[in-house]
């Protein structure tokens, strides 16, 4: 049987790749500095909601693509959770065949324009690039190039809507319209199934829409993907909460034969410290959803405005960065990140931390809140913060933050956003006691098929992994679609 590595090798030996490799000396390639992403000026962008990164020009992209050495053993691929053929898509860019490049991306990644923007490349593909591993140089900008090719395709108006097999009349339900659900829907519709996506909110796209802000991932990009799915025949039912509006059993009675649960991890966590119930203390989830979906940023709308002047965001992940940068854009004088470890240990993408710093966000590292206080109306007006130091490492090897006795001090705040992680949405597991869950509240699945403990019910994305990443959610969705397809084929065979 041909292995993936055989396929990669034989593709690498194709004439066009060979020629391209020989067209430039390795030394020349490695002496090109890594491309800089053009971006809006920090002091301009921190007052608008448009995308910060502006995208590479054709020339920049080709030059960056030239840096890629088209390695015999492309270690970058092992760093990509969905195994994109990275050298091939990059060499297509070097060649100027941008549409071909996008096609390569789409072989394994349904949402390259999204992943190119939001993947934590510095711990995935780029971390495994030869430049980093062996040359101790900046990696090839795989993420920027991925975004470039995908954007090129979208802007060209030449998006290929994949062909769809003959309808087989089998109804499948997808619960949740985040990247996991969209990926399942995309594959299942291609294979001829009758696919309906049920979404609790009025918008489709999951975190891509209500979580990640416009300045990092414009909605338009997600909408194009959703439109594609619609054109292919996927049906979307919004404002439909499975478990409340109708249960899985109800849907079974309506003829749905298999289910994918991609309900995400949207349940916010709090620190449970005194005063956390005061007004104007939000979970990051609520804060971002209000701004992104309810137009709270738009003064013409009457969703409660909460553009505080002194905003503290607790946490160090992407959610925290998105919240704090949003607060700046809503007019805060002081936007603060309060995080208990040091800056290097933040789980956020490196680029987001850098952008936040440039935009004037204050980083109060090795600090943690202990109590909130409020004015007579119950609005938070002050917080007590404690300094931390790093103690002994825990079993993950990270040093534990330990409070420094007697180091408490007060900070004036009028808005607080708590962004310290999320739990899986409990509604579906709670409504189906036969569904096995882990101690983390995630749904247990078979690693290869993504089938849960209940036959015909598949799951993936954050509901299986805890708060994870877009690319993992999407990869899970595709794996689950395959599992579901096999399951339904054998079920029909048995009938």
């Amino acid at each position, binding site marked *: 049987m041909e292995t993936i590595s055989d396929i990669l090798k034989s593709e690498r030996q194709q004439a066009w790749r060979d020629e391209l490799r020989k067209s430039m000396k390795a030394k020349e390639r490695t002496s090109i500095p890594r491309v800089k992403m053009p971006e809006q000026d920090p002091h301009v962008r921190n007052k608008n909601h448009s995308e910060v990164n502006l995208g590479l020009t054709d020339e920049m992209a080709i030059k960056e693509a030239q840096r890629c050495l088209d390695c015999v053993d492309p270690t970058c691929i092992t760093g990509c959770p969905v195994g994109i053929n990275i050298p091939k898509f990059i060499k297509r860019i070097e060649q100027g065949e941008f549409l071909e490049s996008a096609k390569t991306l789409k072989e394994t990644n349904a949402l390259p324009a999204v992943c190119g923007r939001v993947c934590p490349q510095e711990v995935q593909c780029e971390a495994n690039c030869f430049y980093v591993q062996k040359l101790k140089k900046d990696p090839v900008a795989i993420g920027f190039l991925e975004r470039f090719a995908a954007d090129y395709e979208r802007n060209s108006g030449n998006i290929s809507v994949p062909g769809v097999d003959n309808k087989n009349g089998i109804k499948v339900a997808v619960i949740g319209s985040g990247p996991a659900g969209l990926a399942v829907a995309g594959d299942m519709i291609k294979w001829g199934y009758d696919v309906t996506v049920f979404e609790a909110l009025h918008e489709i796209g999951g975190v891509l829409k209500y979580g990640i802000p416009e300045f990092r991932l414009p909605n338009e990009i997600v909408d194009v993907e959703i439109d594609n799915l619609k054109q292919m025949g996927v049906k979307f039912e919004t404002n439909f909460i499975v478990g409340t509006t109708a249960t899985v059993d109800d849907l079974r009675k309506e003829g749905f034969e298999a289910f994918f649960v991609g309900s995400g991890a949207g349940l916010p*966590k709090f620190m*449970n410290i005194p005063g956390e119930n005061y007004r104007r203390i939000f979970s990051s989830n609520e804060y971002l959803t209000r701004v992104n979906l309810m137009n709270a940023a738009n003064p013409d709308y009457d969703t409660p405005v909460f553009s505080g002047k002194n905003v503290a965001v607790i946490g160090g992940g992407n959610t925290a960065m998105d919240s704090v940068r949003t607060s700046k854009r809503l007019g805060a004088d002081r936007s603060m990140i309060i995080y208990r470890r040091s800056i290097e240990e933040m*789980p956020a993408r490196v680029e987001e931390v850098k952008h936040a710093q440039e935009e004037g966000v204050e980083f109060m590292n090795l600090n943690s809140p202990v109590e909130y206080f409020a004015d007579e109306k119950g609005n938070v007006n002050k917080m007590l913060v404690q300094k931390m130091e790093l103690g002994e490492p825990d079993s993950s090897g990270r040093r534990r933050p330990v409070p420094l006795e007697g180091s408490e001090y007060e900070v004036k705040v009028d808005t607080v956003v708590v962004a*310290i992680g999320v739990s899986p949405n409990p509604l579906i597991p709670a409504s189906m006691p036969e569904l096995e869950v*882990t101690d983390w509240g995630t749904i247990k699945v078979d690693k290869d098929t993504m089938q849960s403990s209940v036959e015909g019910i598949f799951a993936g994305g954050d509901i299986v992994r*805890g*708060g994870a*990443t877009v690319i993992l959610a999407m990869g899970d969705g595709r794996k689950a679609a395959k599992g579901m397809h096999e399951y339904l084929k054998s079920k029909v065979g048995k009938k």
Partner: protein
Amino acid sequence: MADLTTKYLGLSLSNPIIIGSSGLCASVDNILDLEKAGAGAVILKSLFEEQIMMEVDASLREAYRNDMIYSAKSESLDYIDLHIRERTLSAYIELIKEAKKRLMIPLIASINCVSSAEWTNYANRLEEAGADALELNIAILPTDENTGADKIEKVYFDIIEKILSKVKIPVAVKMSPCFTNLAQMVKRLSATGINGIVMFNRFYTPDFDINNFSEKSSNTFSAPSESGNVRRWIGIMSSRVDCDLAASTGVHSSEDMIKQLLAGARAVQVVSAIYKNGKEHIQEMLGGLHRWMNEKGYNTIEQFRGKLSQDKNENPSAYERIQFMKYFSEIK
């Protein structure tokens, strides 16, 4: 018939036997059984920061091993200690609520503190859940050669100050016997506004297995002989402090209990004896107390409580004699 009631931390107890903080008081069913068996009050198993850290480590290890769980840059795992602490705390609060619904005797919650920064912020949640009082199990083993006595002592006062500012229910401190100036420390603690002092905490002592060159636990349970030191200090301090005293460690029999009451304790905490003899032992101890009071003609505990404390003792210097020169010199 003698009246066995006593008052401890302002709470009315039907008798002076309190089941001390331990695994005996870790579930609603057990606690109800102890009540039925005659306990005057119960102290829940302590909430331990150390135990939470162990759970955090186990959970992290499991997450890193399980490739379905996202661990590389997870925001939730970044704060997992807080999340696990919250889970533990919620379970504890649930225990208090459930027990309170069905229990008639006082229920005292217990938190293990090694610094003022850990649980102090959560104390009011235990109060809200319905705990009748709070026992602070302050356990500091002074192993850091760079930390002076004053600094360690200060931790006690910092913890107390914080807790007292958070809760209105009575607070007791379960203290260590290891202080150079124990009398002064007890006196100062009693003046902070707390309602009681438990003398003393009994620390887990590691032992060696000399055949396998490994560590093993030793003496999980106390021996009655250990009650002597407690009796001495309760006797010395009971008339000098501004709060109640409870005896803990080595109270195994009604006789041990009577001695602590004579020294001035308002109640005794019993753990090892119950582990060893079962909860029926409570009735045995109460029966002994009853018989003794009848024999001596006492109707209430207050009639004899503190009768042999240092200030009432005919030979006060006996309390301070530590060398027993005469006694030892006579042993051949």
